[in-house]
């Protein structure tokens, strides 16, 4: 059954649909008005039908609708008019609220005439759903943004704040609306890294970045912030989003940490330097201690050795002396004996000088005429250096006498000669020269006239290094078993002790010159008698001698000497034994006691004796110069090893003076 189109226009379907249907004729007059539109427009069909659309709804004249309806008739266009872009009909829903609607305009061609159909659709639900969705989305968005612990501030291209999130209060102290339309400058200290970035003109091309800025809270206090910057564009305008994180605590903590660390470092460095200094001091002190310990041990060593050696030499000397007396005057034998005695005596002096070096023994200072001493030594020197070395003496006739311990000088010269010999294994020449030096100051010494003794060899010489170390005790270049290394240091020590100096000059391959600068003798010193070696022994009257020595061998030797001198001897091996003997009724005229004895030493014995019998002369025989200076004054001292002559002199002095 064909249904005519006209039937539907006013038929039940027309009024049943859930959209508005309006039919217009070519004059834009309303020929169809369905139930739905009547309801929402509150205008019934009776009121409407036949009227021009724009007469009923005057506002429509200014809208697109009339033109669009025209187009539908003229061109057959179909059009849509949305509520967003157009203001349309005044329609209301059941709740009385405005009904949002779209209008679709369609040409309708029927057999007889042309019509235009308007379809009005309610979009309220769609709109509210959309709105709801957007609000929900916005709400979520706002929640996300407001829940951020950092402050989010958006500025436009003139640095005016357009938008802030809720956290600006917590972070900066500003209420939500207080910042809007203000320039972001109010949040920043004058010197900051943010403004220059914001000032850039082509901001929208920049990449997101983060800067550290010094900012200001609402209360005016200053804080440190890390601000991250993002760029975006909307509606053809550039915007910048800044996210502010307060890092003041961290910055101050960092600064404090840095300060503490710097402080610590400084303290550390100070500590280190102090430790270094102390270590150095300690090292120096240790070195010095070591040196002095070395010296002490050397001293002790040499002292010990020398002491024993002394004792042995004493025995040798004693026996040789006696032997000389006992043997008939055979010139050859005599010469041999003399030489032996000389050798032993030299050995004694050597050990004595050794001890002097180790213990700074008191020197026997005397007047020495070099013109005499050196020529006398030459023989011995020649023997010391061997036949390959030529010895020359250049002593200027006017050279003055010097004040030194003669034995020590001899010993020094022997040392130098031996060194020179060792430096000339292929042979060479040795020259000893003496001259006056006008003033010590010229050679870096004290004021006053000096005498200069030079010992020059033509040997290998020394390198600068060796030269530097030459005066060290035990330093030797001579190889094992060949040199004690004590030579030069001994010479140096001798020179210094004598108030002079030793100078070294050497050149590798050329030779060495040792210069001794010694003080000229004062005029008032007594000239010793020319005769140094008198074999005349002063025969003293017979003495009863108590000889105390723990060493039997030495005791024997000394006893022989005493006997030879015409005295009678009683020997004791210890202090206590001696005291016992003294208590017995045999009287003694003099006590000769060794110093170094176990149990009671000689000094203690002497004191004990003195207590009992203050008049008894006591002689302390010391080979080991250990006596403290003050204690030896009251007792006569006899240096071991001693000759018979020394013994006689001591006895004389002790008993008769």
């Amino acid at each position: 059954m064909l249904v005519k189109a006209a039937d539907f226009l006013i038929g039940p379907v027309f009024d049943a649909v859930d959209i508005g249907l309006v039919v217009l004729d070519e004059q834009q007059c309303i020929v169809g008005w369905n139930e739905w539109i009547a309801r929402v427009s509150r205008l019934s069909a009776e009121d409407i039908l036949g009227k021009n659309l724009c007469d009923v709804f005057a506002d429509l004249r200014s809208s697109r609708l009339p033109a669009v309806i025209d187009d539908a008739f003229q061109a057959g266009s179909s059009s849509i008019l949305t509520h967003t872009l157009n203001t349309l009909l005044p329609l209301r829903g059941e709740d009385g609220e405005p009904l949002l609607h779209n209008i679709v305009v369609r040409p309708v061609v029927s057999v007889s005439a042309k019509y235009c159909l308007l379809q009005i659709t309610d979009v309220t639900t769609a709109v509210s759903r959309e709105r709801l969705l957007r609000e929900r989305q916005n709400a979520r968005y706002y929640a996300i943004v407001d829940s951020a612990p950092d402050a989010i501030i958006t500025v436009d291209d003139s640095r005016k704040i357009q938008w802030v999130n809720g956290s600006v209060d917590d972070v900066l102290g500003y209420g939500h609306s207080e910042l809007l339309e203000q320039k972001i400058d109010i949040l920043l200290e004058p010197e900051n890294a943010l403004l220059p970035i914001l000032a850039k003109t082509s901001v929208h091309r920049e990449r997101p970045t983060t800067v550290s800025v010094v900012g200001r809270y609402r209360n005016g206090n200053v804080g440190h912030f890390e601000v991250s910057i993002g760029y975006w564009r909307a509606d053809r305008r550039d915007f910048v989003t800044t996210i502010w994180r307060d890092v003041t605590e961290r910055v101050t903590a960092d600064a404090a940490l840095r300060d503490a660390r710097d402080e610590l470092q400084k303290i550390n460095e100070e500590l280190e330097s102090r430790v270094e200094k102390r270590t150095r001091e300690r090292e120096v002190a240790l070195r010095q201690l070591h040196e002095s310990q070395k010296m002490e041990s050397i001293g002790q060593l040499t002292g010990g050795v020398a002491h024993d050696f002394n004792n042995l030499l004493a025995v040798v000397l004693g026996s040789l002396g006696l032997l000389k007396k006992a043997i008939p005057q055979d010139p050859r034998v005599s010469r041999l004996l003399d030489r032996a005695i000389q050798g032993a005596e030299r050995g004694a002096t050597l050990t004595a000088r050794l001890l002097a070096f180790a213990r700074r023994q008191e020197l026997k200072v005397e007047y020495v005429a070099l013109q005499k001493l050196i020529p006398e030594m030459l023989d011995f020197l020649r023997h010391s250096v061997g036949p390959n070395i030529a010895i020359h003496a250049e002593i200027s006739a006017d050279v003055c006498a010097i004040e030194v311990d003669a034995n020590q000088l001899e010993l020094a010269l022997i040392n130098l000669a031996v060194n020179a010999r060792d430096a000339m294994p292929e042979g060479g020449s040795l020259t000893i020269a003496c001259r006056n030096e006008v003033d010590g100051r010229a050679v870096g010494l004290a004021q006053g006239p000096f005498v200069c003794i030079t010992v020059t060899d033509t040997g290998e010489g020394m390198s600068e290094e060796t030269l530097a170390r030459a005066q060290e005790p035990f330093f030797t270049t001579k190889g094992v078993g060949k040199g004690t290394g004590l030579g030069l240091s001994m010479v140096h020590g001798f020179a210094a002790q004598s108030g002079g100096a030793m100078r070294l000059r050497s050149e590798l391959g050329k030779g060495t010159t040792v210069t001794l600068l010694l003080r000229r003798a004062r005029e008032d010193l007594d000239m010793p008698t020319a005769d140094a070696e008198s074999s005349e022994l002063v025969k003293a009257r017979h003495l009863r001698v108590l000889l105390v020595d723990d060493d039997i061998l030495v005791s024997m030797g000394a006893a022989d000497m005493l006997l030879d001198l015409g005295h009678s001897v009683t020997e004791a091996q210890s202090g206590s034994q001696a005291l016992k003997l003294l208590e017995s009724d045999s009287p003694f005229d003099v006590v000769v006691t060794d110093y170094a004895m176990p149990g009671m030493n000689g000094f203690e014995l002497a004191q004990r004796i003195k207590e009992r019998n203050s008049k008894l002369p006591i002689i302390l025989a010391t080979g080991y110069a250990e006596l403290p200076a003050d204690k030896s004054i009251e007792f006569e001292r006899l240096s071991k090893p001693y000759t018979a002559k020394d013994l006689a002199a001591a006895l004389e002095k002790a008993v008769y003076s």
Partner: protein
Amino acid sequence: MRQNGTELTEIEQDALAEIANMGVSRAANSLRQMVGEQVFLSVPTVQIVTRQAASKLVERNNSKRLVAVQQSFEGPFGGRALLIFPEAQSLELVRSIVGDEHSLDDVIDLEQEALAETGNIILNGCLATIANMLHRTMRMSLPSIVRGDGAALFGSAASAEQFVLFLYIDFNIKKRDVRGFIALLMDLPSIAALKEIVNDYVNNIQRQSPSHVG
């Protein structure tokens, strides 16, 4: 190249350009009412291209995300009319019509519909002008929104609509520049019909001014 009957002669080109311009002006008039400020629309060129070529042309500037308002039309010639924009620009267009300087998220509830209407205005302007100038009536559908790249917009290979009357279109609305395209997809018979109608029209006018010196 073999004349396949789809190329425009000079006078045809001239005619279609003039018609297109008038159509777009008409659309501009309609938009002006909504916008409240002068709307600037112009059509620099008109050409007939293949579908593949059109597909590439719309993707210039590497914009593969395209939005089109589409209407089909029937009459002496039929086909699809598309108003095509890169996606980002499409909403710019709508917002430029609706919004002012400030953000307008809350103003547009049904953005999609607004876009459809805007496209509808423009396409109708063109189609209606064509119809009027050529003294023909046509039937046009309501607008729908289509998204995709050039290939998606211009249809599958199987489609009969092989030819595209292609227009570049420049908008300037409220100081925003928007550039888009209008494409009328037609099959060969339709193109031929259109050309015939255009030529008739031209001839009519020429006939009315015999002394006319072109």
